[in-house]
């Protein structure tokens, strides 16, 4: 089992690198939350799904990191391919999410309280979960730092527990995002959020493709 020191280390690492995690997940999470319904409780539910799926991504990553020994041994070229593939899939999910989040008007769009989201609850749950999982698999700097440490542990169970503790440390920083539920949902907000998702998807797509091109794109 993980020693208490390692437990504390993972938690502290998560708490310390939380701002970097929220910055890395922000481009995906903020517009996703804004395309949902209004209300702190609803947003907390969406946030919970996202974070739960992100934990799955973390644990999956922990298994891979432990199996590989250390990410440091991963050469730049395969790392680029892995990142590129994650980015391309992420872009695809974002585009689908933006498309499915069409707003419809209950009776009149002039009344913001009657604005509804077209996507069904299960569609949104699947979309949010996919986004959480993919951001969990992204190699953001704090994640790589945790990956290095997890890879040094004695067993896969220890690596998994280390990542779980790390996850809870970072999650504290995500709690205020539930407050986005207070933002009014009208045609303007939902349209801006959807457009933002498309722009971010295009960014991830172009980044992913250039990463997959690897040598040609980056010159090595």
């Amino acid at each position, binding site marked *: 089992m993980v020693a208490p020191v390692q437990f504390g280390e993972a938690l502290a690492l998560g708490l310390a690198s939380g701002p970097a995690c929220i910055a890395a997940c922000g481009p995906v999470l903020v517009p996703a939350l804004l395309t949902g319904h209004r209300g702190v409780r609803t947003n907390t539910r969406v946030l919970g799904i996202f974070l739960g799926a992100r934990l799955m991504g973390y644990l999956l990553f922990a298994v891979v990191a432990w199996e590989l020994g250390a990410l440091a041994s991963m050469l730049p070229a395969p790392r680029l391919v892995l990142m590129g593939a994650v980015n391309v899939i992420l872009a695809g999910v974002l585009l689908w999410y933006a498309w499915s989040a069409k707003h419809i008007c209950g009776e009149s769009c002039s009344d913001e309280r009657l604005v509804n989201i077209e996507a069904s609850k299960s569609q949104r749950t699947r979309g949010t979960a996919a986004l959480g999982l993919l951001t969990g698999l992204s190699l953001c700097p704090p994640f790589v730092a945790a990956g290095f440490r997890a890879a040094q542990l004695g067993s896969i169970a220890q690596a998994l527990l280390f990542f779980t503790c790390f996850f809870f440390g970072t999650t504290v920083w995500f709690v205020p995002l539930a407050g986005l539920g207070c933002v009014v949902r009208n045609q*303007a907000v939902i349209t801006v959020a959807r457009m933002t998702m498309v722009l971010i998807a295009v*960014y991830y797509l172009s980044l992913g493709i250039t990463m997959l091109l690897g040598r040609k794109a980056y010159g090595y």
Partner: protein
Amino acid sequence: MATNVQAPRLVRPEARSITRSLLLTLPIAIWSLLMFFHPGSSTDRLLLLASAITAVFMVWLFYMMMRTSTTYRWRRAFFVGLGLLFPIGFIHDLVVMRGSMGIPVEEMIAGRTPFCFMPIPTLILPAALTRSVPFPGSLAPGGGASGHGIAVMVGLWLALTLVMGKGWCSYACFFGGIEEGVSSVPKRPQIRKLDPRWRYGPWAVLLAMVLLSLALFEPAYCVWLCPFKAVTEYIAARNALGTVQNVIFILLFVGLVVVLPYLTKKRTQCSFFCPFGAFQSLFNKISIFEIRIDKSRCKSCVLCQNACPNLSLSKESIARGETLMSCMKCGSCVDVCPNQAAVWHIKGTDVAVKPDRARLMFLYGAWALAIMFGGSIIAHSLFTIFHFFA
């Protein structure tokens, strides 16, 4: 069945007398002299000539605004001149000081890049969370991020923005003039119907760029989306990624700054894309100057809506007697209104009570800024041209 719709009768505001117009122009003339010929300024003949031409040009435009009681066409002359001349002086300086318009990406990250106001909104979150800004810096090679220079520029921008709101985009921005010039070329728009949802575009670009800048700690807008990189500095393309980025800059410039303004007669980059414009819109809530529609005079002819270069008027907003948040205070709606229902207004006062006084107060501030900021750029670019041919 055809209906006989009578065109609204255009009631032009009365022209002022020459003497009164000259008197009203006097403060601006003094300001121009102070700006261009202050003690200690260069005695270079070509620079003096460029400064004199600029000063006369700016004072003459203000005089015409006073004489004709119209704003838009005179402001546009300045704005288009600024937009066309800015790249000339800027590119010249870049080539002289750095030897190329291309800036390596590591120079950008290190902040050794020319300052631009566009990324200001994307700097706020990184600055608040990390106490450092990823971009921009000074023009001088190896100068690094000049803290004082940036502070002065941001402070100046903030002070003027608090007063003028989004008026910055009509009197100070050195990019918008190119598309305004292009949009004024055709007599009629080829594309008349524009989906009003595109108005949300700048907000989406702003949100995306703020989030991406924070995530990547790079000036995402400058690295990926700025159309004006096509006419200023660009990323030195040393690999396919750099080439893709530069192709994006060129395509956005051609599409948003040349083709669409020509087809729509609107400032499409400002209306549908510019994240800085969206950010500036927030300050329209604070600024005391605004344009209002006097509902008692309005005949709902929507001439103002059609004339607005920024889609800042809609039927709903006209019915409410106000412009949308994105109004750039260019004055086109006021000039075109046949019933003088669109008026300049100071918040807290009754609508249409001495609107000319509100216009004057706004224009003094806005034109003083135009001379200080845009005028100095025009003079510098003229000097560059004169120097080239001398």
